[in-house]
Structure formats: C-alpha cells, structure tokens
C-alpha cells in the first residue's frame, strides 16, 4: 500500500491558481476548512468552484478573493446567514461570475462526472429561469457552463416522450474533502450523512482528503460496507484534527455558533472581512495558531459531542 500522507501546506500547494475545485461537506458540516484557509494563505486565485449547498467554507474563499467563477445551487449558512455575505456582496458588485443550478442538477452533474458520462438527465430544472433561453435566464444556450459551453438542454425522452433537462457533467481538477477517518493509503471513512462527497471525489482528477484521524487501514477494512470511496481515487491524505472548524464533524465536534456568528457579521463588509482574515487566516499562520485564535482547547472542548448523538446537546446555540 502507498503512503499518501502530506502536510497541510504541501497538499494546499497542489492547488494552482486557475484550477477548478469542489469542496466536500454541506452548509455548516464537514468542510475541509483548515485546507481552505491554507489555500488563502498561499494566495491561490481565479478558482472555478462547483458546489451544491455551500456555507461559510466557500464564502470564505470568495471573500478572500480566491474565486473567479461559481457554478452551484445554494450559498448560505442556515440560521447563521440566510444569504452568504461575501457571496451576496461579490455578486451584487459584479466581482464574480456565477451560474445557478438546483441541488438536484448539481448532484446530477457531479454524478455524471463520477460515472464517466458527459451528461445526466433530470426531471428538475424544467420550468425554472435556470434553463438557458428562458425569459429569466442569465445566459443563452451555447454561452456558458460545461466543457461544451452549454449550461443545460431540454430534451423529449426518445422512449417516453416526456420532457427532461440534460445537465453537463462536472469534472473538476480537485476535490477537497474532510472526513472522520482515513488510512495512509487513502481509504476514507465518512460517518453520518455522506452529503455528495463520494460523487464529488469521483468527479475530480485529484482528491485531497483531510481527516480527523489517521487510522490503520486494517480497521477500515473490517467494515467494507462503510467505505464508499476507493483508495485508488484518493491522492493525498492530511491528518488535521478540528480541520473543519468552525463547521461541525459528526461524532467529533459540533459547529461553533459563536465563531459562525462572528464570521457572518465580519463577512458583511470588505473592511470587516479583511480584519477577520488578518486575525484568523494570515495572522494565524498555521492550523494550530488558528485553533488558539478561536478559543483554544477550552472552546474546542465545549464543541465535543455526547457519545450516542454525534453532537453536543448542551452547546449554547441561540444568541
């Protein structure tokens, strides 16, 4: 078996400016946030990001000026931010390209990429202003997303005659994931919801997985039903405890409501966000320094779950 373990800065250095990426996780859960902060420190620019339901993971990259183009479905952070603040500001001031799909359409696009198909059909998208050529569409057919330059197409099913939307596959240069456990050889174990991590990983040329724990592969092989991403599809493994903070990791730690509120407040203006970046990304030049900056072991202990429920039932969440 191969040893694919890298340090955080080494793994981040693989991601070049201009690359296309997708990021694992969902809204406030299981994002590879430590890796994203390292991308920002390394001044990666001009990323194209494919996403479904992103949160302050992607919003952080946007606010740090790393992103040139977005194709996805949802950017918000639940109760903490009904609209992701940097996303909103960058769109409203025309500082970023974007193309809107639905979650099911992005799921189909990633799944098509994972399945080696150039497109998948979906019953969604029809009748919405996301379809090209619609009165409300931001783009015309042949002008945008997909390798072919086409966002989506309508087709009558040749078998049934029913209308369907076809959406083009996503193939990204990188997929950045955070999982609970990984072996040095790249076998990954996700606990709780998978979100779309399996399909996102398999739709990428290169997969970088950060993990809470590096474990002996023999342990993961005892329950082969629970491993969903083949190790031959994973290229780098980076052990980063608390690597998703301020987002939660099922069975490891809860999201951090205090920090998410702080983030979403700061992200409402360029000036405040520059201060946030200075304090938590550039000023905290390593993951350890970041963890200190957000409250250190004392705060992290408050996020730790009760055995049996995967989160901390006593966590103070309301203001």
């Amino acid at each position, binding site marked *: 078996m191969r040893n694919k373990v890298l340090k955080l800065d080494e793994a981040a250095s693989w991601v070049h400016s201009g690359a296309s990426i997708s990021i694992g996780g969902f809204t406030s859960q299981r994002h590879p946030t430590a890796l994203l902060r390292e991308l920002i420190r390394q001044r990666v620019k001009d990323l194209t990001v494919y996403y479904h339901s992103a949160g302050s993971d992607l919003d952080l990259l946007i606010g740090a000026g790393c992103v040139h183009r977005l194709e996805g479905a949802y950017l918000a952070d639940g109760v903490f931010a009904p609209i992701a603040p940097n996303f909103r500001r960058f769109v409203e001031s*025309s500082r970023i390209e974007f193309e809107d799909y639905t*979650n*099911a359409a992005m799921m189909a696009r990633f799944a098509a990429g994972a399945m080696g198909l150039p497109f998948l059909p979906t019953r969604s998208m029809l009748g919405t*202003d996301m379809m090209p050529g619609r009165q409300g569409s931001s783009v015309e057919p042949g002008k945008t997303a997909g390798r072919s330059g086409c966002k989506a197409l309508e087709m009558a099913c040749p078998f049934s005659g029913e209308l369907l939307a076809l959406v083009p596959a996503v193939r990204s240069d990188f997929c950045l994931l955070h999982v609970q456990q990984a072996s040095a050889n790249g076998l990954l174990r996700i606990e*709780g919801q998978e979100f*779309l991590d399996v399909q996102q990983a398999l739709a990428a040329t290169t997969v970088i997985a950060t993990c809470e724990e590096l474990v002996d592969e023999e342990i993961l092989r005892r329950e082969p039903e629970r491993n969903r991403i083949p190790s031959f599809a994973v290229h780098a493994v980076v052990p980063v405890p608390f690597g998703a903070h301020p987002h939660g990791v099922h069975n490891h730690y809860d999201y951090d409501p205090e920090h998410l509120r702080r983030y979403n407040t700061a992200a409402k203006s360029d000036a405040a966000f520059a201060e946030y970046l200075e304090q938590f990304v550039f000023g905290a030049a390593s993951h350890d320094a970041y963890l200190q900056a957000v409250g250190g072991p004392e705060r992290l202990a408050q996020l730790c779950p009760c055995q049996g429920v995967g989160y901390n039932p006593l966590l103070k969440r309301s203001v």
Partner: protein
Amino acid sequence: MNKRRCSTMEIMAVAAAREIRDREVVFAGTGLPMLATMLAQQTHAPDCVIVFEAGAIDPRMLHLPMSVGDSRTLVGAAQAAGLFEIFNYVLQGGRVDVGFLGGAQIDRYGNINSTGIGPDRQRPAVRLPGSGGSADVAALSRRTVIIAHHQRRRFPLRVDYCTSPGWIDGGATRRAAGIYGGGPAAVVTTMGVIRYREPTKNPYLASYHPGIDAQQVQRETGFELDISEALETQPPSAEELDILRHQIDPERIFLK
C-alpha cells in the same frame, strides 16, 4: 386558548403541521418546516417520515437542527445517506408526498424566487442564496406547502426570477412545462393560508390568522386574492403549543 398568548410563528407552525397526513413522506427544510413536521409527528401523524436533502431519513430528533446538514438530523435515523440517494431515489423517484418551501418572493401562481431581486439577473439588487433543493422539491413532490412572510413586496404578481416552479402561469401550464407531479397545495403565511382553485389555479384565501382580517391580507398581497370564502385559521391547541415550546424548540432557535 387565549389567542394573544401565541405568536405568529407558532400559528404558522401549527397550520403547516396540519398540512401533513399520517404515513406521508415529508421533505423538510430548515426552520419552520422542521417545527411543523416534528409537531405533526407528535400529534396527528405519528408515522409520517421526514427526509432531509443532506442525507438523513426518518430520524427521531431530540434537538432542533440549525440546518438540514446538522448532526441533529441523524438521531435515531433509519438511514444516513447523501444527496445522491435523497434527490434520485427519494425525491425524483416519486416517494415524497409533501415538500416544504420558502422564498423571498411568491407570486400569484405560487412560483418562488430565491435567487435574486431586481430586473438584472447578472447584477441583482439583492442576491439571494439560490435554489438549493427548492426547485427540485417544487417540481418533484406530490404537493408542496410554501411558508412565507406576508408582505406586499414579497407577494408580487410575478416573481423577478422563477427559481421554484409553482403553477407557472396557472391552468395546465405547469404540466406543459414538463412537470408531471405536484404543485403548491397551500401557502402558509404570517397572515393566513392561501390555496389554489381548480382548474385555473387562481389563488384564494382559505383562512386568515387570529387577529387579522381578510382585507388586511389582500392589502399585503400584490395580486388579486379571492377572499370570499376565507375563515379564521383554527388556532393552536394548548397541547400543540406546549409541544412546540417545551419539546421541539425550547432553545427558541426558530420560534420567536
């Protein structure tokens, strides 16, 4: 029950819960739909099943999730899957009976905008979060229930951007757009409950909440609403309020 003792959010949660029947599969998003579904499970619909797009199927939640990806959606769950399974096998596979929706704008035919406000699609006056699963739920559930803050600017004749198709332009236009199932059954707002007539899909006010009258609802609505048959919304029972306040949202995460 003294009507003044319950909040608008509580009235809405109870009204939304009553849209759910026992044994139904419910696609619930963050916030009020979660409250409503959990309330339905603890009252008249013990065997309704919640699914969350992030992957949890049929949980027995002990604490209210702050988003559909929250670990709290997994307590006692029958399945921890992912978006692939939920959108393909559950939603597009035709297994969802009732889907909950929200949005910044809801128009005359129940079309929803959660993408952007204003005429310029590439430079909206307000950029909203985007569809997420909303357009998918709108197209693929057997029926939908929309939750909305009732203000005239939020209820325009026509949405600026159709994120989630309702009855499109009324009549058979939804079907003509290639959408075979579903459509909005009710819009539960801060002021009342709107439904749609067959076969025109024209909206009518089914009920107004306690303390509000039908004319007030019409004034806060940017399109014509038939209010001729509107009745007062049946207020929450003491039991429903007790469950909402003390079992479902004691942290007051969504209930204000």
